[in-house]
């Protein structure tokens, strides 16, 4: 019996092998085989090969006779999966930034085809993180495949929470969409779970955003940050994929803050007040307050700058929503997702290129900060 493997559909086999072999090294090694696009199309769509998942390049033009793109093959796979003619497995976009910009940039029509979108540069920069995400998405598919229907009990198992926590921390629209998606097919529910829950801040936040909301410099705080995080277990996400996607329930954090601060909301505290509150509460030395990045105004950080996150090497720029520019996403966000903002300095530098930026916010804040 051969080991299950990921199929990497890529038009330059020699180069692709380098990526495949890199993903096959280390403690989280994955078995990855490079598959020529022409062969992949036939073998995947007929079910001759059933990989753990597909890593899909977008530009396949280096192969003679290949006129399509990775998006087309991915769409065909999704169609066959929906018709239950082939197995449901994850499809990951694994491509370089330039082909993505050329073929996909600004066009959201392929957004829901892929469970994850990974830049090839990430394989070089942080291979372990890529391997973990791939393992995590497989886990989500495995778990969802085990449920024929999603009732409340199964939802709680999937989300790793109690019925009461589900009422308080989660969102009914998420539950409906997951249940409806699972009834359709696994990849629809998995897409909601991955893109809507694990990857989009809203109900869940990752460690970077947790630190931003607590007003702390995670790196600067060193060991003290590690000690603090260990004490925030009560609202840590324990659902499917929690080992690979470390997250915290955003409303759990806010509830906890109300308890420790005498009923005041976390968002209303300034950075120094948050830092003071935490240092006093936990009697921890070494917690370092967050410093707002140059070009990011305000002192009540709550979100990360959307535009800065979109760079091939994302920059994590905390923003205070009241002093930032709203961003209209290219696709409608689910009701439980956080609204998007851009740091003022970043927005001003992008305003001629990016029509998603809210013009009235830009003008209001431009006037306010003109002399700074």
């Amino acid at each position: 019996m051969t080991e299950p493997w990921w199929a990497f559909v890529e038009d330059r086999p020699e180069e692709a092998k380098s990526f495949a072999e890199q993903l096959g090294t280390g403690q989280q090694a994955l078995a990855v085989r490079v598959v020529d696009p022409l062969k992949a199309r036939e073998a995947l769509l007929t079910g001759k090969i059933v990989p753990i998942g597909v890593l899909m390049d977008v530009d396949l033009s280096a192969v003679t006779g290949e006129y399509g793109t990775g998006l087309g093959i991915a769409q065909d796979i999704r169609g066959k999966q929906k018709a239950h003619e082939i197995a449901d497995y994850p499809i990951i976009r694994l491509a370089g930034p330039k082909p993505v910009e050329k073929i996909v940039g600004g066009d959201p029509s392929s957004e829901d085809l892929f469970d994850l979108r990974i830049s090839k540069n990430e394989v070089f920069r942080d291979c372990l993180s890529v391997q973990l995400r791939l393992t995590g998405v497989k886990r989500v598919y495995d778990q969802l495949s085990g449920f024929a229907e999603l009732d409340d009990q199964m939802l709680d198992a999937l989300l790793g929470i109690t019925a009461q926590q589900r009422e308080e921390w989660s969102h009914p629209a998420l539950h409906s969409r997951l249940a409806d998606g699972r009834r359709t097919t696994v990849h629809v529910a998995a897409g909601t779970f991955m893109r809507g829950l694990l990857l989009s801040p809203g109900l869940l936040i990752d460690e970077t955003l947790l630190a931003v909301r607590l007003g702390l410099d995670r790196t600067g705080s060193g060991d003290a940050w590690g000690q603090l995080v260990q004490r925030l277990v009560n609202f840590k996400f324990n659902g499917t994929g929690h080992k690979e996607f470390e997250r915290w329930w955003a409303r759990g954090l806010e509830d906890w803050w109300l308890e420790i601060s005498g009923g005041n909301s976390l968002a209303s505290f300034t950075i120094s007040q948050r830092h003071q509150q935490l240092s006093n509460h936990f009697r921890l030395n070494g917690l370092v307050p967050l410093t707002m990045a140059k070009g990011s105004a305000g002192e009540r950080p709550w979100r990360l700058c959307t535009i800065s996150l979109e760079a091939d090497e994302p920059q994590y720029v905390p923003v205070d929503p009241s002093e930032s520019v709203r961003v209209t996403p290219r696709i409608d966000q689910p009701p439980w997702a956080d609204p998007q903002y851009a740091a003022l300095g970043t927005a001003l530098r992008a305003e001629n290129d990016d029509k998603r930026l809210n013009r009235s916010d830009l003008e209001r804040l431009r006037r306010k900060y003109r002399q700074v």
Partner: protein
Amino acid sequence: MKRAAETVDLVEQKQEELQAAEARFADEAAMLRFLATLGMTTSEFSHETGMTFDAFRLDFKRVFEVAAQAKRNDRNFVEQAERAQTMLNRLDTLTSYLNALAAARSLRSMRPVSLSKAVERFERGIGAQAKSQEIDLRIETPPYDALYTQPMHEAEIASILLNFYTNSVKSLKRSKNKRRILVSADRVDELDPRVRLRFSDTGDGIPDENRKRIFDPFFTTGTAPPAGAPDSEHATGTGLGLWIVDQIVANAGGEVSLAQPPPSYSTCFEILLPPEPEDD
């Protein structure tokens, strides 16, 4: 008769002037064709080598790890391998910036360009390379003013910065001063809203006799050295860099000049560009 002879002389003189002007324009047109071809080739090269380079980085990393592990007791080898990896990282940063520049070059449209963003990108792209040359590269940009120029090609500002940078590196290598570069962007003042770029270094400066000629095409202070020549001898150029800068700035309706450098700096190039008109 005399008047007819004068007229003939005048016509001949004008014909010579015309021929000289035609020759000059032909030279410039040839040079522009050469530069355009070079730009397109660079862009195509960058596109074609992108993934190969990425794949090479991955393979090299693995080869390095295995080799370093196998020969971990061989100090010379470990040093050599680490040096190679450092150089690859440096090359990586630099090529990323150049690739971005090549990609921007392929955009034909002109639009307002944020000077602040261009300077910040330059620092991110070149910072590691500068550090490797023991150059302390600093930038100063206003946090809430993007400093938009009137419409230009996006790659033009990057080309200007790269030209200044290569000149500065040469100048710094020739001097024994502590190597520092300061790139600042701002507006001139409230009365003059032009956007300003200042590029200063602590190199060996520009002699007075050269100050008027540095923007002339093919003006250079040296000839190319042999391949094996020491580092400092490589600090020479083709004499086209500042001419290109001058052409870009003039086409954008701006000015480039040598300005009074900030305290402790020896050279400062200053560019003034017309700003994007404000709506209000």
